[in-house]
C-alpha cells in the first residue's frame, strides 16, 4: 500500500506523493498538466465532450508491446496513471520551428491546412497519433469514428480527415517506435501497488486485487466506486461537487477479461468498451454497432462494462441489448459470487438489486443464434458522441414465418430500461408481417409514458418507439 504514483510524462519520470504535496487525488490529468506548464493540453468543456484535452496514455499490453489509447484528460484522475506513460502533443518530437522536424501527424496537419485557430489541434493530433500507433485498415468511416470525440469549430473536418490519411500512409518510425524497448523497460521498473491516499478529509483507494477491493468496500461503505470515472468525474469537473471518498477499481486486472465460451461472452466488469468493441465485430454485430455510437473513442478507451451497468442510467446504451439477450450479471462480495438475470437487475430509477457490500464482477452475454435476428438502435440528436434520446434492442426468432419469441427492450422511455411486454405478448405466435407489425406499433405508441426533456418531447418518443419496430421489421427481412 502506498500513497504516491509514478508515471512517465512525455518520456520524463514523474513522481507524485499526494499526501506529502497535499495534492487532491482527484486532481484531473488536465488540471495537473496545465498547472505544471503543459499548456498544449486544452480545456474546452471539462466533461469529455469536445476532445480539446485529448492525450495519449500508453501502457504495456498483454502481447508485451505498448498500447496507445487516446483519452480525455479532463475527466481522468491522476491515480489512474500509476505505471503508465502520458504523451501530449508537445511530447511527439523535441520543440522545433522546422516543419520537416515535426511528427508525421503534425506535419500532415500543417500541410493539409487542417488547423485554424489551433485550439482543438493538440487534441486532434493526439487522437490521430493514437491511430498512428494502432495498425488497422483505416477508411473514412473508421477515421470518422475515431475522431468523433474531437470537435473543431473552425477548420472543417475534411482537411483533418485528409491529414489523418496522409499521416497514416506516411507511417514512418517515430521516437516512440524507436524507443519502445527502453520505454517498456522504464514502465516495468515502476513498482505499482495498491494505493491508499488520504489528503485532508478526502480518501482515495485503488486496490490491485479483487479480494482487497471487497475488503476495502466493506471498511469504507461510504466510498463511491469508480472504474473509468467517465461518469463519476463529471460530478467534480462540471458540478463542482466534492468527492469525499472513492474506491477506484481500475487497477484490478482480475476483472479485465473477455472470453468466448460456447455461445456466450464472459466479460469482466473492468473491461474497457473499446476493447470489447474490437472483439465483437463479427461475433455480435448488434453489440459492435451500439458500441460504435457509444460516446467517443476517448471515452470508450476508459469507460467500462461495470461502469455502464453500475450507473444504471435509464438511457445507458448497453442494458437494453443485454436484457434483450437475457444476459446475466455476476456480483462479487464477502460471501462470494452470485448471478442475477439482467432482466431482474433494475428495480427503479438508478436503483438495482446490487447490495451495498457487493461489486459487479462480470456479465454473461448469450450470443445471437443463427436463427435469431438481433438489432439495436439508438436515437440521438447527433449520430456520434451523443446521449440517447431513446434506444431499443430487438431480438426475434421465427419458425415458419411465425414469431417464436420477440424481445423488445427500450431505454429512455421510463425511469428504467424496460421490455415492451404488451407488445411482445401480442406478437408471440403471430405471423411476422406488415399488418401485425403495424398493429403492434399502435400498441407501442401508448405503452410508455415518457418524459419530455431537453432531448425531445414525450410525443416524439412514443412515435419513434413504434417506428423503431417498423424499422426492425424492414431490417429483419434482410436476414
Amino acid at each position: 500500500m502506498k500513497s504516491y504514483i509514478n508515471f512517465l510524462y512525455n518520456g520524463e519520470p514523474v513522481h507524485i506523493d499526494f499526501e506529502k504535496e497535499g495534492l487532491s487525488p482527484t486532481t484531473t490529468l488536465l488540471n495537473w498538466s496545465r498547472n505544471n506548464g503543459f499548456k498544449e493540453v486544452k480545456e474546452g468543456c471539462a466533461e469529455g465532450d469536445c476532445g480539446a484535452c485529448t492525450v495519449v496514455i500508453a501502457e504495456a499490453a498483454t502481447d508485451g508491446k505498448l498500447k496507445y489509447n487516446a483519452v480525455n484528460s479532463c475527466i481522468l484522475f491522476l491515480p489512474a496513471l500509476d505505471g503508465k506513460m502520458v504523451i501530449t502533443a508537445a511530447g511527439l518530437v523535441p520543440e522545433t520551428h522546422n516543419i520537416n522536424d515535426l511528427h508525421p501527424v503534425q506535419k500532415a496537419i500543417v500541410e493539409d491546412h487542417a488547423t485554424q485557430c489551433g485550439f482543438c489541434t493538440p487534441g486532434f493530433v493526439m487522437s490521430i497519433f493514437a491511430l498512428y500507433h494502432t495498425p488497422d485498415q483505416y477508411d473514412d468511416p473508421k477515421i470518422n469514428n475515431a475522431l468523433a470525440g474531437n470537435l473543431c469549430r473552425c477548420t472543417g473536418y475534411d482537411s483533418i480527415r485528409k491529414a489523418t490519411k496522409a499521416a497514416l500512409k506516411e507511417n514512418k518510425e517515430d521516437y516512440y517506435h524507436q524507443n519502445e524497448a527502453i520505454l517498456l523497460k522504464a514502465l516495468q521498473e515502476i513498482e505499482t501497488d495498491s494505493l491508499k491516499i488520504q489528503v485532508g478529509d478526502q480518501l482515495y483507494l485503488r486496490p490491485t486485487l479483487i479480494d482487497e477491493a471487497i475488503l476495502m468496500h466493506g471498511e469504507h461503505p461510504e466510498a463511491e466506486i469508480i472504474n473509468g470515472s467517465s461518469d463519476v468525474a463529471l460530478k467534480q469537473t462540471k458540478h463542482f461537487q466534492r468527492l469525499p471518498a472513492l474506491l477506484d477499481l481500475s487497477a484490478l486486472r482480475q476483472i479485465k477479461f473477455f472470453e468466448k465460451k460456447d455461445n456466450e461472452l464472459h466479460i469482466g466488469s473492468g473491461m474497457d468498451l473499446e476493447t470489447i468493441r474490437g472483439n465483437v465485430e463479427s461475433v455480435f454485430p448488434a453489440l459492435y454497432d451500439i458500441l460504435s455510437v457509444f460516446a467517443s473513442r476517448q471515452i470508450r478507451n476508459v469507460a467500462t462494462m461495470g461502469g455502464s451497468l453500475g450507473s444504471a442510467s435509464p438511457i445507458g446504451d448497453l442494458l437494453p441489448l443485454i436484457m434483450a439477450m437475457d444476459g446475466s450479471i455476476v456480483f462479487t462480495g464477502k460471501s462470494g459470487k452470485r448471478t442475477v438475470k439482467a432482466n431482474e437487475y433494475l428495480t427503479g430509477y438508478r436503483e438495482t438489486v446490487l447490495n451495498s457490500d457487493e461489486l459487479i464482477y462480470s456479465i454473461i452475454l448469450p450470443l445471437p443464434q443463427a436463427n435469431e435476428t438481433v438489432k439495436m438502435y439508438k436515437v440521438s440528436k447527433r449520430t456520434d458522441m451523443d446521449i440517447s434520446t431513446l434506444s431499443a434492442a430487438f431480438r426475434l426468432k421465427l419458425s415458419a414465418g411465425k414469431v417464436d419469441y420477440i424481445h423488445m427492450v427500450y431505454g429512455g422511455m421510463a425511469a428504467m430500461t424496460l421490455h415492451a411486454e404488451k407488445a411482445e405478448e401480442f406478437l408471440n405466435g403471430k405471423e411476422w408481417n406488415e399488418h401485425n407489425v403495424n398493429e403492434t406499433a399502435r400498441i407501442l405508441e401508448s405503452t410508455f409514458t415518457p418524459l419530455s426533456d431537453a432531448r425531445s418531447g414525450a410525443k416524439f418518443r412514443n412515435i419513434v418507439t413504434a417506428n423503431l419496430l417498423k424499422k426492425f421489421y424492414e431490417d429483419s427481412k434482410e436476414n
Partner: protein
Amino acid sequence: MGPVFHDEVCLADKELLCIGHTYAVVAADTYEQAYLATKLIKLDAEEKTPVLSIDQAIAANSRLQPERKIERGEVDKTFKQSKHILEGQFKNGAQEHWYLETQSCIVVPGEELELMVYSSTQHPSETQAIVSEVMGIPRNEITVETRRLGGAFGGKETSGNHVAAWAALLARKSGRPIRIRLTRDMDQAITGKRHPFQSDWKIAFDDN
C-alpha cells in the same frame, strides 16, 4: 457595453434580467475556492414574472428595439388591389457560437493606474475603451494585447469585454494579476449569443 446597442451593464445592480446575468465576481487563489465562495453570496431579490419567449415579450410590450420592417413595392396600395395574399411567420432560434476556447482574460496591474490586459477579444480597441470607461481611467493607461485566440465567429467581438472589465476591477481591488477563464457552462449562460428572431411576412401577388 454589448453588441450594437451597448445596453448591457458591467455588473447588474438593480435588476437581474436573465440567468447568467452577473452581479458579483469573486477572486481567489484557486478555481474551486472562488466557486465555493460564490455559493456563500446571499442574494436579496424579489421575483418578477419572467419574459421567456418573443410572443411573451410582444404581449408585455417588452421590446429590445422598435419593430423593423423590410418592404418592397407600394405596399399599402398593392395589398388592397392584389388578387392573392399569403402570410405567415418564421422563427430563427438562438445560436451559441461555441468557440472552442471559452472567454478568458488576464489583467496585470502596472505602475499607478496602468493595466496590462491580455484578452481573447476579437476587438482589442473596444476592449480598451470599455475597460477605460469601467475603471474611469484614460485609455492610454490601458494596453490590450490579444495573442492567438480560439476561433470566435463573432462571439468574442463584444462578449469578451465583460470578462476584461471584471478582471480589471478585481486587479485594481486586489493589486494582483487576475485571470478569468469561464467554464463552458458559465460561458454559455453569461454571453449574449445570437438572439432568436421572429419574423412575420406577408406577400401579395397576382395571377401572373
